[in-house]
C-alpha cells in the first residue's frame, strides 16, 4: 500500500514537472524575439539549417557580407552555389565558430571571411550576441561561441533557457509574436538580406584618429584558428573587405590584413580599392548612405566577385547540376517575388521591409 502511494506520488510529481516544463517551453517560444517586425536581421543564422548543405562557397561575417553579396547572381552568372552565414556585428570568434559548425555539415571549396570584424577584440553588445547565438543549433561550437562572446552582464544559463533573458517581453508582446509562434518565413535569400531602396551616400563621417591601429590579440587568435581549421579541412580561406564606405576601413588596418594574407599565402581582396571597376555608384547603389549596398550594388559586387572566384580561385560552374538548378529555380522565383514586393511597397510609400 505504502509502495503504491509512493509510486503514485512520484508519478504525480514527474507529471507536474513535465507540464510545468512544457508550459515554460511554450512561453519561451512566445517571448523569444521573432525579428519579423522592426529588426529583421536577428534570426538569419537559423535559416541555414534548412538548406541542403552542398555549397561551393560559404560567406562568413557581419552585415558587410549578408547585405553586400547576392548568391543568386553567383549562381545565375557563374554557376556557383553559395550561402552567407552572417549576422549583425558578428565578431571574429562568432564567425570562427560558425565556420567550425559549417564545416561539420559540409566541405565548401572556399570560405569567404569579411575582415571588418577584426576591429573588435572583445565582446561588444548583448543584443548582437543574441542575434548570432540564439539561432545557432546546440553544438560544442555554439557553447564555445557563447563563452567567447558573453559580455560581463550575461549569463550562460540565459542562453540555455532564453526565457530567463526574454521573460520581460511578456508585457510587450506584439502581434508578430503570436503570428510567428509556430513558424516564420525566411527573410534572406541564401543568407542575403535584400533591400531595393536607395539612399545616396552623402556626408560620410570623417574617420576619427585612433590611439592604436593594431588589431587585438584575441581577434588574431580566432583568425588564426579559422585559417588553421580551413587548412586542416582542405578548404580555401579567402579574406575580403566589402566596399562599404562606413565604418571606416583605415589604411593601417588594410596593411595588417595584407601582411597577414601574404604571410600565410591567403587571398585578400579589399573591394574598396575596386569600387570603379565594380561599377558601384554610391548615389544609387546603397540604401543607407554607404553603410550597405542595395540590390543593385550587391548584384554588381557579386558579379565582380563571381568572376574572381571562378578565374582566380578556380571555383568551377555547377550550372549543369540538375538538382541544384531545380532548387535555384525556386529560389530565384522567391528572389524576384521579393524584389517586386519591395518595389510595390516603395510605390505605396510603405517601409520596404
Amino acid at each position, binding site marked *: 500500500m505504502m509502495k503504491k502511494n509512493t509510486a503514485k506520488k512520484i508519478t504525480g510529481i514527474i507529471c507536474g514537472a513535465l*507540464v510545468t516544463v512544457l508550459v515554460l517551453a511554450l512561453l519561451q517560444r512566445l517571448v523569444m524575439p521573432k525579428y519579423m517586425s522592426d529588426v529583421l536581421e536577428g534570426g538569419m543564422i537559423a535559416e541555414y539549417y534548412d538548406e541542403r548543405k552542398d555549397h561551393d562557397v560559404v560567406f562568413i561575417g557581419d552585415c558587410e557580407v549578408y547585405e553586400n553579396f547576392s548568391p543568386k547572381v553567383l549562381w545565375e552568372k557563374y554557376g556557383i552555389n553559395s550561402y552567407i552565414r552572417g549576422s549583425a556585428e558578428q565578431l571574429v570568434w562568432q564567425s570562427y565558430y560558425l565556420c567550425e559548425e559549417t564545416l561539420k555539415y559540409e566541405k565548401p571549396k572556399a570560405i569567404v571571411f569579411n575582415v571588418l570584424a577584426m576591429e573588435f577584440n572583445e565582446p561588444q553588445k548583448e543584443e548582437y550576441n543574441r542575434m548570432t547565438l540564439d539561432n545557432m543549433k546546440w553544438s560544442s561550437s555554439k557553447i564555445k561561441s557563447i563563452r567567447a562572446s558573453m559580455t560581463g552582464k550575461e*549569463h550562460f*544559463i*540565459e542562453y540555455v533557457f532564453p*526565457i530567463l533573458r526574454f*521573460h520581460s517581453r511578456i*508585457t*510587450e508582446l506584439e502581434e508578430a509574436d503570436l503570428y510567428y509562434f509556430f513558424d516564420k518565413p525566411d527573410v534572406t535569400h541564401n543568407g542575403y538580406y535584400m533591400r531595393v531602396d536607395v539612399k545616396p551616400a552623402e556626408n560620410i563621417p570623417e574617420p576619427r584618429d585612433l590611439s592604436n591601429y593594431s588589431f587585438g590579440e584575441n581577434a588574431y587568435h580566432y583568425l588564426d584558428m579559422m585559417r588553421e581549421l580551413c587548412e586542416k579541412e582542405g578548404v580555401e580561406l579567402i579574406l575580403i573587405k566589402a566596399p562599404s564606405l562606413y565604418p571606416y576601413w583605415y589604411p593601417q588596418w588594410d596593411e595588417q590584413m595584407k601582411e597577414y594574407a601574404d604571410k600565410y599565402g591567403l587571398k585578400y581582396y579589399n573591394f574598396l580599392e575596386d569600387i570603379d571597376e565594380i561599377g558601384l555608384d554610391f548615389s544609387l547603389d546603397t540604401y543607407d548612405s554607404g553603410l550597405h549596398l542595395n540590390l543593385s550594388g550587391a548584384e554588381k559586387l557579386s558579379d565582380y566577385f563571381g568572376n574572381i572566384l571562378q578565374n582566380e580561385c578556380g571555383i568551377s560552374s555547377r550550372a549543369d547540376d540538375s538538382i541544384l538548378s531545380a532548387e535555384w529555380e525556386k529560389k530565384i522565383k522567391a528572389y524576384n517575388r521579393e524584389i517586386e514586393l519591395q518595389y510595390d511597397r516603395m510605390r505605396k510609400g510603405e517601409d520596404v521591409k
Partner: protein
Amino acid sequence: MLFTSYAFLGFLLILFVLYYVLPGKAKIVLLLIASYFFYLSSGLWGGIYIGVTTVTVYVFSLFIGRTLDGSKAFLSSPEGKALSKDEKKLKKDQAKRKATLFMAFCIMINIGILAVVKTLGTMRTDILVPLGISFYTLQSLSYLIDVKRGTEKAEKNILKVALFISFFPLTVQGPISRFSELKDTLFVPHKFEWKNVSYGLTRMLFGYFKKLVIADRLSAGVLTIIADTGIYGGGYAFLLLILYTAELYADFTGGIDIAIGAAEVMGIKVPENFNCPYFSTSLKEYWRRWHITMCNWFKNYVFYPVSISKWMGKIKKFTGSHFGAYMGKRIPVYISSFIVWFLTGIWHGIGWNFITWGLLNFAILMISEELEPLYDRFHKRFSFSNTFGYKVFMMIRTFILICFLNLFDCFSNVGQTFSVMGSVFTGGKYAEAFGGGIFEIGLSRADLLIAGIAIIIVFLVSVFKQKAPVRDRMQNLPMWCRCILIGGLFVAVIVFGTYGIGYDASQFIYNRF
C-alpha cells in the same frame, strides 16, 4: 552572492545534493564550509570581521562558562560547603562579577566593531559594511549573554559556534536566532525527508515570488518618487507610502522565506520572523508580528535587563516617592522603552532618520499605552467597536501609520521626510497621480497589474494562513491541484519576475541594516 543570483541557486543545488550524500557529521562540516564560502563570496575582508566575532564570542563564552561552572563546582565541593553563607555569597558574586566583566569586554569589542564599521560606512561611500554584520553580531551576542545567564552551556566545539554565527541563510538579514533555537536541528545531521525538501522549496519559491514579482517590480516607482520629491509631491507622496510599504514587506518577508526555506530543505528549523504584520490592529501588535526575532532580541537583551537593573530600581523608588505609585511604575517603562527604541533605530543605521523613526515608534507606543484605559471605556461603551468591520478599520489605520513611519527608510534627511509626510495632506496632485501620473514613474500598466495580482495572492495566502499553515493545508489537496499551484508559482516567478539584463540586481532592503 545575492539570494536572487544564478550563482546562489547553483550553490544551493550543489549544497543540497552534497548535504544528503555526505554521511553523519560531515554534513555539519559541509554547512560550515558552505556558510564561509557564501560569506566570503561577498568580499574576503568580511571574513576578518565575522572571524573576530566568532573567536571572541567563543573564547569569552568559554571563560564565562568556566568561571560560573568553576564557582558552582567549588561551592558544591566539601571545601565550598564548609564556607559560611556570606562567604558562599561572596564567592558566587565574585564569579558573577568576573563573568560579567568577560561578557562586557566581549560585547564592547563586537558592538565597537559594529559601531565603527557602520559609522564609517555611513560617512564614506568607499567603505563597505560587511554582509549582515548587524544580524550576526546580535545573534552571536545573544549566545554570549545566554551563557552568562546560565541558560545556555558554553559550547566547546568552535566549529559549532562558527556555524551558528555564520549559517549562510541567516547572515544576510536574519532571522536573528538564539543558540537554543538552532542547536537542536543545526548540529544534527538530517536524513533525506521529502516533506522537508518539498516544504522548504515551496517556501523558497514563495519568497522568490514576493521578492522578484512584487518588491523588485515596485522598486522602480519608489526610486523615481524618492529621487525628486519636489515634482512628486501630494498624490505621488501618497503613492510612495503605499508602494514602499508593499515593496518593503515583499522584499523582507520574501528574503526571510528564502532563508527559512533553504534551511528547511536540510531539515534545519529557523524561528519565524513574521506573522502577517499588516493584519495588526495596533502598533504594539505590529511589533509582535513584524521582525519578531529582532524585537525579541531587544526585549530579552535590552528591555528586561535595563528594567530590572539596580539603577532602574533606584529610579523607580525615587519616582514612586516623588510622583506617586503610578508614575513610579511607568517612568522605568518609559526609560527602558526609550533605550530600546533608540538602539533599534541606531541598529537600523547610524542616522537621524533611523533615530527619529525609533523615537517616534517609542512615542506612539507609550501614548497608546497611556490611553489604554480610555480605549477600554470606548470598547465597553460602543458595541460596534467589537465588530469585524471595526477590526478592519483598525487594521487599515495601523497600516497607514506604518506606511508613514516607513518613510524614514526612504530619506536620510528627517526634514525632508516630514515635508513628504505633510505633502500627502497638502500637496494636491491626487488627480494627476491617479489620473495617469502613476504610469509615468517607471511603472507601466502591466507592472502595476502584475504587482497588484501578486499582492492579492500574497494577501490571500496570509488569510488562509490564519487557520492553519498553508503548506499543511496544501497537503490535503489532490496531487494535480498541488502541482498546478506550485508549478503555477514557479512559472509566475520565471515569467513575471523582475530579474536579468535590463534590471539591476536589487539587494534586499534589509541588507543595509
